[in-house]
């Protein structure tokens, strides 16, 4: 004796948020039922395990049928198969495209290729996220990437429009796409302390300031690639370290400004040239795609680590970077103010964001 067939179809599609989450998390039906039983739905509603199983199966089926539509969220709104209230639709999409920070840290900056997908079982064991969920998240990244890759106009806006995502989530996806496109290295041990949100913030800075879309509003080009011209111009900043006079002038200006204002003045004074060289070298090398990938490593190695070993506080860093940036404008022989500002603005906020344990 067995139930051979068991379906429930509502005119308005009934979807339980809790079960949806379990489904998204890649639980099997039986595991989901266990979780639900532990959650106490049964007592609440005088239901039996059988009822719960039937309901879970049904919901899972509904989600599977919806999944196809969720791949193109815009379709969800004008499909006819399921009658889902708009607020529900938004919930479905948002949760479907939500991801685990621990997962995204593993694939951030990696090429969204089949090879990476094959390694997902490792990621799954490492993070404790089910393989199913990992695959969904990975596929989401890839899908978003593929769609916006070729689109013109602002990246975040494109993502928001095509995938009907809430603002924050769209920004996160923009970061992921941006990272994947530029293949930023994020997996090195030195970078492990950084969270996805740190990177997402940095990506936001880069997108907003260093891409072509950032300067002209022509919308011709896309936000995914860095502004080549700008990268070229960054080479000009080298003068700050190659010209001995400039370097000394710069150092003295900064030191004057900071004297007495910080506890790590001596360390700063001693390290100034090193730090400045580090930052300017990063700028000068960005024209090479390979060095773009190492951007975050370089920031950590060339600036954050030295500062940290000297026990700078983030206030110190902030103070230093502010004066370091501003002092350049007082240098008479320096001509590349615009590039410098554009460069240092991003560097400063990135470093400040990344400067933590």
């Amino acid at each position: 004796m067995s139930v051979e067939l068991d379906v429930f179809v509502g005119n308005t599609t009934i979807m339980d948020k809790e079960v949806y989450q379990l489904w998204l998390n890649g639980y099997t039906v039986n595991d989901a039922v266990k979780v639900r039983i532990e959650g106490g739905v049964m007592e609440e509603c005088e239901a039996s395990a059988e009822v719960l199983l039937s309901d879970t199966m049904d919901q899972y089926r509904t989600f599977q049928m919806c999944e196809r539509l969720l791949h193109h969220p815009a379709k969800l709104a004008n499909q006819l198969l399921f009658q889902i209230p708009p607020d529900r639709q938004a919930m479905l999409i948002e949760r479907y495209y939500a991801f685990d920070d621990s997962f995204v840290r593993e694939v951030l900056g990696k090429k969204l290729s089949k090879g990476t997908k094959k390694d997902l079982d490792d990621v799954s064991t490492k993070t404790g996220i089910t393989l199913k969920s990992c695959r969904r998240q990975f596929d989401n990244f890839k899908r978003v990437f593929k769609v916006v890759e070729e689109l013109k106009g602002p990246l975040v806006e494109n993502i928001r429009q095509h995938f009907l995502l809430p603002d924050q989530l769209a920004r996160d996806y923009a970061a992921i796409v941006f990272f994947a496109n530029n293949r930023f290295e994020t997996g090195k041990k030195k970078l492990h302390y950084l969270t996805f949100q740190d990177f997402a913030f940095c990506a936001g800075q880069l997108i907003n300031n260093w891409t072509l879309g950032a300067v002209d509003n022509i919308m011709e080009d896309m936000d995914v690639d860095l502004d080549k011209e700008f990268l070229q111009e960054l080479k000009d900043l080298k003068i700050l370290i190659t010209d001995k006079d400039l370097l000394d002038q710069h150092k003295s200006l900064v030191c004057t400004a900071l004297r007495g204002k910080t506890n790590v003045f001596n360390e700063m004074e001693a390290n100034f040239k090193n730090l400045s060289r580090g930052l300017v070298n990063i700028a000068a090398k960005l024209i090479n795609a390979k060095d773009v990938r190492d951007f975050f490593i370089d920031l950590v190695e060339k600036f954050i680590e030295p500062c940290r070993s000297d026990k700078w506080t983030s206030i110190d860093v902030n103070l230093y970077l502010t004066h370091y940036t501003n002092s350049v404008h007082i240098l008479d022989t320096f001509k590349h103010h615009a590039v410098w500002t554009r460069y240092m603005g991003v560097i400063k906020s990135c470093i400040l964001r990344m400067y933590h344990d």
Partner: protein
Amino acid sequence: MPGKLKAKIVAGRHLPVMDRASDLTDAFVEVKFGNTTFKTDVYPKSLNPQWNSEWFKFEVDDEDLQDEPLQITVLDHDTYSANDAIGKVYIDIDPLLCSEAATVISGWLPIYDTIHGIRGEINVLVKVDLFNDLNRFRQSSCGVKFFCTTSIPRCYRAIMVHGFVEELVVNEDPEYQWIDRIRTPRASNEARQRLIFLMSGELQRKIGLKVLEMGGNAVVGYLQCFDLEGESGLVVRAIGTACTLEKISSTLPATATHPSNSSPSKDMKEPGFGEEAPGVPLSSGPPTPLRAQTFSSFSPSKSYSRQSSSSDTELSLTPKTVGIFLFPSTPALESESSPLPSAHLPHHLWPGMASRSTTPPPLRLSQSDTAILRKSVSFSEELLLAASGMGSGGSAGKEGGPLKALLRQQTQSALEQREYPFFTLAAFPPGFLLHVGGVVSARSVKLLDRIHNPALGNTRSYKLLDWNSFTADEPETRDAWWEEIRQEIKSHAKALGCHAVVGYSESTSICEEVCILSASGTAAILSSRFMQDGPLDTEHRLSRQPLCVFSTGSERVEGDMGSSASLGFEEVVSPGCGFCHIPYDELNIPFPAQLTYCYCCRRYKVPDVLFTTIDLPTEANVTGKGCLIQARLCRTKKKAQGEGNATVISNLLPFLEYELHTQLMNKLKLRGMNALFGLRIQISVGETMLLGLASATGVYLTALPSPGGIQIAGKTPSDITYEQHISNMQKKINDTIAKNKELYEINPPEVVEEIIGSPIPEPRQRSRLFRSQSESSDEVSELDLSHGKKDAFVLEIDDTDAVEDIHALLTDSPTPAGFYSCNTEIMPGIQNWTSAIQMFTSVRVFRLNANLTNQGLNKIFSDLCENLLKSLYFKLRSMVPCCLCHLNFTVAIPEDELIQVAVTAVAMSFDKEQLLENGKQSGEKTLIKAITENDEQLQFNLELNAETSAPNPLSSPKGLSEVGSHLSARASSVDYSSFADRCSSWIEQLKLKAHTIRRGSVKTTSSMEKASPLPEGRSRSLRSNRSYSGSSVAVVKMTPLSFIPGAKIIKYLGIINMFFIRETTSLREEGGVSGFLHTFIAEVFAMVRAHVAALGGNAVVSYSMKECVFMENPNKNQAQCLINVSGDAVMFVRESELESTSVQTQSATTHTSNGAEGT
């Protein structure tokens, strides 16, 4: 050429990829109507083609317009090979043929393929230019409106109810045609879909013709069914109630006399109807052949069901059935016996009926041709012969020729007479339904003809090998079958002293070549007053009378009826109890029943229990709330073939019905209730078993006596442990009854009995079946005072059956907190619905193990239903407090060892406040409510008066009579009974009227704030509405009910009647059987919604899934499913939106209302 159909193909979207190479599609569209086909250009390489075609014009007969669907096929162009079909859309253009329905079909419709399901959508525009055809002999019936709704549709009022219409058409099932062996299943299913579309179109047209003949303009309660008889063909049949409807429109002066139904969610009925003149449902037909063969009148008799205590006397009923069930198994004989209008059994067998009968039977007898009479007598002798000696049909075969002619003749005459006083309506305008007798039902087992059986073929009157003759004869045979059943029903109704059958429905269950035909309804007496003095304008009346079906006899009959009605029932005291009063003669009760004086008015007799198939009348006085009651039964049966099989089934049927009845009665009593509404008994036949499922909504009618408890009596009192066991069980039962009474708030006013004394007749029939109930009556009386006085219901557990019964009783788990359930339109005691509704369909198939006993089967079947209900409650828990309304269970046995249960219902939330308050306040609440409604009503009424400017002859005198004497003025009381929705007593009504008059001129602002529970619901609805507006797909609500809570239906756009087949050859890949069916049901919903939206509607009311046939072959990885759904497409507006517009008119009205009050 009286019609021009125009179609334009605008665009497509979400098309599937047909060309793997380019991931795109080169789509074009074929538009076909009849034999004419147009094509659009190919729109290359796109999944969202924009054809924007010219208008394709079809010039066709209106007959074709009715029969044929517009067929749109989307194809993928292929240069080198045949074009691939992407899918099809069938558009029923019937709604466009009626001026009051939709004017254009425009919107995105899903492209459907039987293998792939929905494959994208197509945007089309369809219009019809119709030239009126006034030809008397025309074959079309354009303009006749069809409604699935089983009450007078919301924005109409009935001028005339003409009566029963039926029709059936037969065709060969494409799946069984020779060509099916060489074509693909897909092609065969396509052909089937198309054929059924055609057939239902034809059927609708033919019914429409009958309606026009009768002088009507609409069919209400239209019920269309398919019988997939397999090799013997495909039958599409329909029944309905012909009416003359008039649209209620506030702008039309003509409707001024009618207070419009401004609040559909509260008021189920059409108050305006009460003033009009519907037909007098006179049964002027000839005395019907009184063969008891399928007699199963579910009379409100206690003792009938008391047979459980091993009575022998009452069982005489069943043997009768057994004996005569035999002959239907020989088809030839069957056709002979069926439509004999002249009696072949003397009618005086039923003295009660004779005294009641309105048509003098002797007269009829003399009319009938003597030859026929003689012949018929001889037939019946033969029948008896055949019945006794099974299969001796040889002699009958010889007479095939003349018999056939006779049959024709009789069928024809029956058609002309058209004398079934049946109404498919389940809800009536107040005052229309006078008395209810009880449920009448008839079943008969038939053997479907098989083409390849020469042995049987010999005894036939025709050869089936020739298809043409087959199709020619087939409808007549089927007609005759139904005719016979209907006659049966009619005679049952007569036996109950009733002249009409309401809430009538027909169904079939087919297994292989055996077919069970069932019909059931509620015997009732309808008001003749509507005919006599209803309409005030004589002009109307004159034109109407000749049209009235029921007056076909003579004026004399009419008068007769009128007087009898006025004698007995006209001055019925309260509409809240009037319908409960017995229609039959007390001295000649057709069945043993216990009568008492009505607990409301104390003047007329009422039965102790009342079973009906109709909805609970809104004016009925009900104590507490109702609940769904189900009796479930499963009986094994031996595998057999042909006639043997039919015999076995016929033998089982009466027992099945009897047991279902007992179960219903037990469960009703266990809930402390005394009446069943919406009773629907479904019997399904399989190879090795029979399934019976009876569903109804139990209520406590205040007018009926309080039901007695259930007593258990043991057979072997010697054993002490046994005694203990019994007393334990007794206690459990008593506890359950007490608990249920509390749960359903059943606390009938006991005082009444004390004050008035006992008008209950002393010589009460104590059934001999009773064992003493003294042993345990003490503890019972503690629980319920009325217990001691009432006759308790005795269950004797001397056999396993009874033990099983008791277990079954106690295993029914109560509905979880916050849930109510019923299978009727509305739940008594719940009124303030919010706009949150959720329609759903749930299907379960259960596989049984072989070798199960009856008991085991019963348990499994019962658990299956219970678990399904539990699942529903769990699913819908977010809607609490809510009520599952119109719970419609359908059972089937798709295969050996498989049971399929399908449920369609709607969950409706209601406001909690009312729930918290209990019984006592409900009167007050209704009063307030009633007043608000009255205000609205009154103002609407008067507002219209103002517009017409001519003083209304009806409404002002009505006002007068209200103030003066409410007792005598029946007309006004009828009216107000509907407003005072569930006013629990006469006195309250009195108060109410006083209120109304006083407040008549006050203003509505106060009334609006008093209707406190509503604004919240309304605002909620508004919110949800607004939030929906952002979506690009219009929201379409679906409900099996005839109304949408918190909204007013402003337009009926036409009937939705759709038929789909879906098949798969990759069952596993599509998620197994559940995945497959889940998708299909969702697709069906989607297509219904899309078609409604294209008609300009935003809801489907009276939605039902009539057929869901699922077949699988897991070994081949295949499955197939067939679904038929129907409903009424409507356009509704939220009441909250209406309010804003009505404010102005209301203020204008106040002035006039003062004046009107003065008169």
